[in-house]
């Protein structure tokens, strides 16, 4: 009985602790540095991380996957919550100045495409793991070609989440974080690189079950994928 009681207390306190720390993270997220942040603060962060040997990427002022990994390493080494987000505690540990009050953002600042790129990178990662780099760019290009094609949805999310379209959406592997290379391939395809010559279909001949798909006009093969329109 005693043991059950201790166990119960342990669980309840663990749950409480988790929910509190979760709320805490949520609360401060708004003003922190995280994947996709840009600017002088990120430059300062990268410089510090590089000086201490956590980071070997370029000092680019852009918080990308390499910076993300470096921040996590730093947090791990310093006993901080390993979330890859530079909040007040990580800031203090890094010896960076505390949050400056930023002037109100000017009106009319356009939307950034950073969310699109995350989604695209994840589908590329899930669909083309282990493919050559141009094969990854090609998968990204097919998604973007579909957005521009009348016979498909007109938004990137619409294309990617279209039912029965992509295996990773069905089995949930689209929710895995994309690696560095997938991220880079997503950016190249968003910037117009298209090795497929305008393809809107791709499939792996080893696993494709549909006969219909072979009636399409094939443009080329890259790695294990056949591209067509």
């Amino acid at each position, binding site marked *: 009985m005693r043991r059950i009681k201790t166990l119960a207390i342990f669980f309840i306190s663990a749950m409480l602790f988790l929910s509190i720390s979760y709320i805490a993270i949520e609360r401060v997220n708004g003003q922190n540095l995280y994947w996709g942040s840009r600017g002088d603060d990120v430059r300062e962060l990268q410089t510090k991380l590089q000086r201490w040997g956590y980071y070997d990427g370029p000092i680019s002022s852009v918080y990308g996957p390499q910076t993300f990994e470096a921040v996590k390493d730093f947090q791990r080494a310093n006993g901080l919550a390993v979330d890859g987000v530079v909040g007040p505690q990580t800031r203090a540990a890094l010896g960076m100045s505390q949050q400056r009050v930023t002037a109100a953002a000017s009106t009319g600042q356009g939307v950034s495409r950073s969310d699109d790129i995350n989604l695209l990178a994840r589908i590329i990662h899930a669909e083309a793991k282990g493919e050559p780099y141009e094969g990854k760019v090609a998968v990204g290009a097919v998604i973007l070609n579909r957005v521009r094609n009348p016979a498909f*949805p007109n938004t990137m999310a619409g294309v990617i989440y279209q039912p029965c379209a992509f295996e990773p959406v069905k089995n949930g592997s689209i929710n895995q974080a994309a690696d560095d290379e997938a991220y880079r391939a997503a950016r190249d395809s968003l910037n117009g690189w298209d090795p497929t010559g305008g393809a809107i279909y791709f499939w792996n001949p080893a696993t494709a079950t549909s006969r219909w798909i072979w009636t399409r006009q094939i443009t*080329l093969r890259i790695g294990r994928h056949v591209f067509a329109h």
Partner: protein
Amino acid sequence: MKKYIIPGILLVALIAVGVWGYNQQQQKNDYHIYLDTQFQRQFYDLIGHVENVQVDLSKAMLSGSSNDMVRFLNNTVNQSYLAQEKLTQLPFNHSTIRQTEKFLSQIGDYCTAMVSKSLEGYVPNEEEMTTMKELHNYANLLAKELVEMQQHVASGGVNFGDLRRIGNRDIEDVDEHMKDLNLINIEERMQDYPELIYDGPFSEHMKDIKARIKGEAIDQEEALQIVTDTFKDEGITNPRVIESIQNTTIDGYYIKAEKNGDNGSEVSVGVSKIGGNIIWYLNPRALGESKLNAEEAVAKANEFLEKRGYSKMEPTYKMAYEGEMIINFAYKEKDVLIYTDLIKVKVALDNGDIIGMESHGYLVNHHEREIQEPELSEEEAKEKLSSRVKVENSRLAIIPTEGKHEILCYEFKVKFGQDNYLIYIDANTGQQKRVLLLIEQEDGTLVI
């Protein structure tokens, strides 16, 4: 007493598993019903939108003034895109609904083109009215068929949740279900709606665009030589043809090669069969610490293009990412910037290597142009701008329309509030053709 212990434990375990299984089953049903009802909602929305397309289009046709016409055409545009969106998110197999999806996109796009024409004071001619009438008939037909299908759904004959599961499993099965659903029937009747040619991105003429670039046809050996020559300074070795790229706007060869000092990571290139031009080039090597600034990177890219015979290319905008910079170049002729003839070059910021190139726009669009003198002077065009903006500079440029036709415009870089914009005024008619917002960042300028 002892002999009951094990059976007792087993019995308890069995009951526990039973309860667990029942709960799982309940949960599964719950999700299944939820999914099915979500899909049903979308399906009912779809029918509503298609009916509205039909109604709004008919109202547009009978409108007396072009103002009213524009209003109804705009509604048609909205409703058809909403219908398209709903249809594409239902769990139907793509091959059985692609014509219907295309119809909905095209009707929206066609009406958008008609809206812009009407706003410029144009009255649709007899032919365009006939096209609209035909489109209206097809929208009507689609609505009717969908309503029929709805009765099938309502009577419980279709479960969208099941459809999704089957759709992911077996194509043959799906075809059976689609027949049940009347969808095949719809799709067949949608096959012969008229081909639409107009100034829009979904117009039928877009897929027939062929590259304008001229030159000799080359074979594989020559293609390899071109790769070796083009990337001589980049230290590329051992190029080999992997595949032929065909059925595209620019057919070519897909070539892979190695690059010195990149630890075996391979580069890939597309070379056009006609003219032997580089269509695209990608070198995904790891990037070191950035040492070049923007001016140096642009100079490197410029030098690369000039050495390969692309003279008269002007850098238009640039964007830096982690360790690399992408620079856009547009062709310039007689002080007119030709945005359609576009080449992108990617420079590594650690040592200035060229690690990417993309020249699809240039190869498709570049040709000898007879650029006419504009009818409006720069001052006259400037008067067309809003008095609220401050003009910073201006120049002549050729930009593509939605349907990839070219128009000569005055490009004005203006300031409005905190932001910079590019405004394009047609140099002959004085109409405002496009407005772009410039998002200036430390790392370069993004144009939206």
